[in-house]
Each structure stands twice: as structure tokens, then as C-alpha cells.
């Protein structure tokens, strides 16, 4: 490799791995590219903050073992996401409901005001984290299957066929369950807003 191509190689670290014809993505490339996705997915799927490291580790250990098995069918992202979903399901038994998730958010159920984040953050980051915390709290009210579907559809912006691929269910089933999940989420969100407005009065 010519020395000047080192910078090019670096700048492509965020690009799709294994761009070279016939080359497979290495574990390092997959880690660099997908760590953030795996981490976010673990949290979004309801992993308590204290367990996110464990889930992410397990996902990458599975990836390390199975990367050679990836057949190039479908996107690598969906394939990895499927692994995350399964690992989170495996871990879920060990999660405790009271474990802290998605801080910072005071327990909404107690009617307390959200605790502001102690560390001052740029306002847009703080807002996003606050929205994320509220979203997590609302998703916590749903069952795990609805949560998975909503995260895949609304946050990961996957299509129903992609979701079907990830969770291993027929597309029609995904459609019908997704309808139920959206309805349940809207109801939970409406209840939350009603509580908020009562508190302000």
C-alpha cells in the first residue's frame, strides 16, 4: 500500500467494511463500524445501563466467532441486528425491572419531575437524551415483542421485510404486530402527556 493511501484507508473507517472485491470484513472493521449501532440497539431494546457492556461484549464475541459464516445475503447490518436482538432476549431474564434504564429520567410513575442531568451538556444533546429517556420509559411499559418491533421500525427505520428478517417472523405477522405495537405506544404516550398536563395545572 502506498503511504499516502493510509489516510484514505482511515477515512473509510466509517464506510462499509470489506469494500475491496472479495475481501471480508475483519473483526476490527466490524467493531469500528458497528459498535455504536450495537450499543444503541442494546439500550433501545431495554437493556439496563448496568448491563449494556455485557450485552455489547456478547454480541461481538458471537460476531467474532461467526463472522466467517456471514454469507453476504441481506445486509450485514440486519444480520448483526438479529444477533443483538437474540442476545438481549437471552439476557432479559437476568435484567431486573428496577434496574436503572435510560438515565436520566426520574421515575415517571411516581409523578416526580424529571431530574435534570447533573452534567451540563449542550442543549441539543441534553434534549435528545431527555427524549431518549422518556422514550425508554414508555417502551418499558410495553411487552418485549412490541418494544422490539417499535425500535426496529421507528428508531432503526427498517422496513417490515427487514424486520421480518431480523426477528425471524413472517412479514404479515410483522405488519399486524406492528399495528398493535404502535397503538399500544400511542396509548402509553397519551397517558404520559395527560399526567404531565395534570401536573402543570
Amino acid at each position, binding site marked *: *500500500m*502506498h*503511504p*499516502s*493511501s*493510509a*489516510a484514505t*484507508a*482511515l*477515512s473509510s*473507517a*466509517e464506510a462499509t467494511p470489506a469494500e475491496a472485491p472479495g475481501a471480508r470484513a*475483519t*473483526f*476490527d*472493521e466490524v*467493531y*469500528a463500524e458497528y*459498535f*455504536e449501532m450495537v*450499543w*444503541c440497539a442494546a*439500550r*433501545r431494546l431495554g437493556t439496563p445501563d448496568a448491563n*449494556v*457492556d455485557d450485552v*455489547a*461484549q456478547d454480541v*461481538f*464475541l458471537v460476531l*467474532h*466467532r461467526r*463472522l*466467517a459464516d456471514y454469507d453476504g445475503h441481506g445486509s450485514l447490518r440486519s444480520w448483526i441486528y438479529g444477533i443483538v436482538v437474540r442476545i438481549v432476549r437471552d439476557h432479559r431474564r437476568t435484567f431486573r425491572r428496577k434496574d436503572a434504564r*435510560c438515565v436520566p429520567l426520574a421515575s415517571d410513575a411516581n409523578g416526580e419531575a424529571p431530574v435534570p442531568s447533573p452534567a451540563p451538556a449542550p442543549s441539543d*444533546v441534553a*434534549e*435528545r*437524551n*431527555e*427524549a*431518549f*429517556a*422518556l*422514550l*425508554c420509559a*414508555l417502551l418499558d411499559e410495553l411487552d418485549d415483542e412490541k418494544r422490539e418491533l*417499535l425500535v426496529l421500525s*421507528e*428508531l432503526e427505520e427498517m422496513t417490515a421485510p427487514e424486520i421480518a428478517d431480523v426477528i425471524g417472523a413472517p412479514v404479515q405477522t410483522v405488519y399486524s404486530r406492528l*399495528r398493535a405495537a*404502535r*397503538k399500544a*405506544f*400511542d396509548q402509553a*404516550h*397519551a397517558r404520559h*402527556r395527560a399526567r404531565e398536563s395534570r401536573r402543570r395545572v
Partner: protein
Amino acid sequence: MTLSKPSRDLFEAAAGGGRPDRGDRLRVRAKIDKRLAATGAAAAVGALATKTAAGTAAAGASGFGAIAGAGIAMGTIAKVVVPLVVVGAAITAGAVHVARHPAAATQATQAAPAVSVSLREAPAAAPSVEPRAMPIAVPVPVASSEPVAIPAPVAPPAHVIIPAPVVAAAPIGRMPEGSGRNETIEREPAPPSEVALLEGMNAALARGDAAATLGLASEHARLYPGGTLSEERDGARALALCMVGTTSAAREFLRAHPSSPLAGRLRAVCGSRADSIQEPPAPGQ
């Protein structure tokens, strides 16, 4: 049916939240490397340390396959097991044996076909943190089956198993930044070998200890300024500096060694600072 407008807005606003920071990326990576080392797939940790002369090692390795799974991150590096060197206990421990033929260690290659280094996880992280750190065992297979234990200096996860002739050629009896415990073995004082130093750097990296890595890298640079494993040392140093937020060494390393097996790992670890690392080489160079 789609979500209601307020719900859609909430999802949209929340999509950017809950992101990992660089510390998360590094911490999880260190844990993964440690577990990979423990389960026998050396992966990126091994890639750092290994400089192998595949041709000479191949004869000794015949009959032993490369370690399954380890090839992913070590595609360009031969992974061989040299049966003469391997003590049975090391195999049953599930460790990865990487045959090394650093050209500088000519004494070693004369005496034995290779130095076999097994990476496995010790139950404790570091002597300075965990008092129950495992010592490095140095069995002397020819003379005795009883392992001689010396205290782990900086690199508890590395079990270096070296045949007797190599122990003399590459003693690891003294290491910098010792644990403070008395040494339980009396050997001719000698500086740590290149391999031992690099193993120490690997172990320190695996547990996310940038300071220890940099200390060992300095020691290596002092003892072996033109050493065979200088590239690996510089790579370890660059990784450690990335861990503390400085990417200039990584850029420099990648300019000097664009096709190094470490390049991928450097990108993985330093990638979140890609903004600074993407800079093209300075004009005129």
C-alpha cells in the same frame, strides 16, 4: 397504521440520544479482547504481538491447525503451534500458542524451534489493582515438569511458556514497574526480552491500562531501539495514546506502516476521532 404525530416526534427526537462515547467504545473493546484471549482466540491482541516467520515455523507446526476463529483478525499472520515447545498443560488450558520467530532472538531459534506464548486470562486484572493476580508460569519442560513461578510484573494475563534454552536467552525475571512483591525465583538478572515486553504491552492494552502500556513501550524503546518488534511496540504505543485521547502517534504509525496488521485495530480504537485522523499526510512529504 402509523404512530400519532406526538409519538413520531418523540421517536425522532430520541433517535440521537443514548449514544456511546469514546470511553464506552474503548472499555468494551478491552473487555472483548480480554475474553477472546481467555477463550483461546487471540484475535486483535495476538495480531499486535505476533511477528511470525511462517516458513520456518511451518515445519514445526505441521499436524496442528491454526486456531479456529482467530484468523479473522489475523488473516495475514500465520498461527502455528509448535508441539515441541508446548507443555501439555498449556494445551489443556485452551490457550493460543503463537509461534514467534523474531529474527533478533537468534539464540532462541537455535535452541528451540520457536517461542510459544500462550495468552489466557488471569482472574485478576492487574497486580496493582487486584492482589490475587496470577503469576507468570515459566515451566522448564526439559529439566523438570514443575513450573517455576515468578511474580507477574505488569502483565498478569500473559502466560509465557518458554522452553528451557529460551529462558536463558530471553529471561523475564526482571521487569520494570514491578508489583512490589519479592521475586520467588533467582535467575541471572537480565533485561526483559522483547517478547516479554510486548506481551506486557498486550496485556496492559487488553485491560485498558494505557499508562502501563506506555511505560513498557518506553522500556522496550530504551532496551531495543532497533528491535525486531519495534513496529509492534510503536503500534501499542499509538493505541495507548489513542486511549488517552492523542491520535498523532496513530497517524504517524499509519503513515510509516500503512499495511501493518495493526492498522485495522488502530482504526477501530481511534476511529471515533476520525476527524483528526483523516487528515492527509502533510504536503511535501
